[in-house]
């Protein structure tokens, strides 16, 4: 079964950057999906049941924490590995991140190669 990665960010440039950074995984059949706000991201996650999600924290409609909480706790999708992307740097609220069940957080600006390496590790590729 092909792996699915969902990228949720309201910034088009960031969606584009993350997609391009992960592009070569498509050669192994991995499917890359994107959503442009929290609500759309939650809907897409519900339908596609991705293996890995990159989730921006500061987004309109539903923020990353809320989306993460809904997926992990309300939908019970414990197997979806969720990486929070935050522009908050050291201000990032780790306790909140833990509470909503996120697996990892990455601070912007992040390194595309690091993103790719992490994705390979999570997907076992």
């Amino acid at each position, binding site marked *: 079964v092909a792996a699915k990665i969902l990228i949720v960010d309201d*910034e088009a*440039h*960031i969606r584009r*950057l993350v997609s*391009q*950074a992960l592009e070569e995984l498509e050669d192994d059949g991995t499917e890359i999906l994107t959503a442009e706000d929290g609500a759309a991201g939650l809907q897409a996650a519900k339908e596609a049941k991705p293996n890995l999600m990159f989730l921006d924290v*500061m987004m309109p409609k539903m923020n990353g924490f809320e989306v993460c909480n809904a997926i992990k706790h309300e939908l019970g999708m414990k197997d979806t590995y969720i*990486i929070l992307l935050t*522009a*908050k*740097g*050291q*201000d990032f609220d*780790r*306790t909140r*991140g*833990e509470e909503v069940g*996120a*697996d*990892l*957080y*990455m*601070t*912007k*600006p*992040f*390194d*595309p*190669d*690091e993103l790719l390496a*992490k994705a390979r590790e999570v997907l076992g590729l």
Partner: protein
Amino acid sequence: MQLQFSPFLIPLVLCTFVAASLALFALRRRTAPGAISFAFAILGEMAWSVANILQWMSTDFAGELFWARARFLGTEIISVCYLIFVAQYIGQAGWLTRRNITLLFMMPVISLALLWTNDWHHLFWTSASQVKVGAYVALDVHFGPAFFVHTLYDYALISTGLLLLTLEFLRSPRLYRRQLSGALLAASLGLAASLLYVTRVSPVPEYDLTPVGFALAGSVWAWTFFRFKLFDIVPAARELVVQNMDDALLVLDERYRLVDLNPSAERILNHPAAARLGQPLRDIFPAWAELASHSPNLNSLHTAEIQLPDSGTPRYFDLRLSPILDPSGRLNGRMLLLRDITQQKENEIALREAKEAAEAASKAKGAFVASVSHELRTPLTSVIGFAKLNKKRMEDVIVPALTTDSPKVQRAVNQMRENFDIIVSEGERLTKLINNVLDLSKIEAGKLDWRTGPISVPQIVDQAFASTASIFLQKQLEAIKDIAPDLPDTVGDQDRLEEVVINLISNAIKFTDRGAITCRVRREDNFIVTNVIDQGIGIAKEDYDKVFQEFVQVGDTLTDKPQGTGLGLPICKQIVEHHGGRIWVESELGKGSTFSFTLPIIAEGNGTTTQTTAMASATN
């Protein structure tokens, strides 16, 4: 000449000693009102006693007569000085001008003149003869008209003093009554003894008991001095203090009716004293009712800050209510003291407002810095990320596909490769700047999360060398570790201290072109001292402090190609100082610099343990 020693001498000798010690006592307190004149009166007493002793010791008529006359020198001094003393003591010495004092001494001088010329006119003593009193020779005199005039004058002076004291006694607060009653009793004793002699009703009429009376009087005074500290709190001083003090003083009876108040209190209450005396406090002082309701037990000292409307502008007062107790501890009334603290209060308010404004400004600055830094991170992610991706695509996809050998194309590819690197490294520098600005603003606001735990400085140095290994390699510099054995652990924030050492090492590398960079760690007393020593360009002495200031890079920025953010050392300073340490630099231009910092050695368990969190961070 033959001398006789009779029992009559004993009281006189005692008098002399009492008087001498009293005079000394008063002279030591000569700054107190009345002390000097009191001392003179007592010295007069002493002279009188001494002359009396000598008179009683003499057996020949001429000697007795001489000393009997000498006695009067003392008598005259006593009565005048006594009156002056009383007037000064109760604070009514205004009339004691030089002229009036001279007038007071006129009569004594005339009396003395008449006494010493008595042999010619017998106006003072009508007769003088030697008589036997028991086994002893005594002088017996009969008083003439001049003597009685002289005596009446003395009595008048002493009675005036008594009258003044009595009046003062009647209008004095209870506190001073004992003092005054002592002084009154003393003066009466002297007067009584004198009357015994003058009227010749004494069992031994030849023996003048007046000095003994005054010695008794002096003793009572002495008792008054020591017991009630006559000269320490004189009524005159008390009056002045209360009348002139800035604080308002109100004296209340046990039912809170106004009994007395000073001029300051009149000003505050805006009414002359007379109009207000006897009225209940709550009528004249509206704030009172509320205060009283808040404080159930008004018998103990009570303090409060109150606000009085004073023609529109409120004024603030510090209020103290204290009970006035009599010696048996019974409540006699209360004393209310009001101190105007409006100025102090206004300063306090202004200070608080300024502090709040400064805090708000600092908070706004912090919030601004935080929000700017967040807003910059997203575009920076694109800038750095796409530059990296572009370079990767170029290397992986485009360069292999190039078929031309054109030098122009080759050069363009090389330029693009380097340009992408520049974009990335400058983007990373900007990221670092943002982080530093944020850190500094949070350290200054005291809001940085410190993760304190046990730390080992040698381990921190190891880590810092590992993190900087690649730049050491780039510049071909030698890294030397010189770490003392058996250094104790201390307590601190591992990551931030590592940041300090990395920063110092990176700086050293940046400004050194060849040679070695040494990191030395030693223990000095209760501190661990870390030195980072380079052989670089060095820093001028006048710039030592500047390097730790924000956004200051020392040296010619054009030729030295600044590569940092200008915030590295200021942050190091903040971190070190947060740990209770000190950071400084010593340097010699052209030879190198040594950056040093200290960390206090703190026993483990004194710091809070590191917080651990299950969620990992993938950032560097």
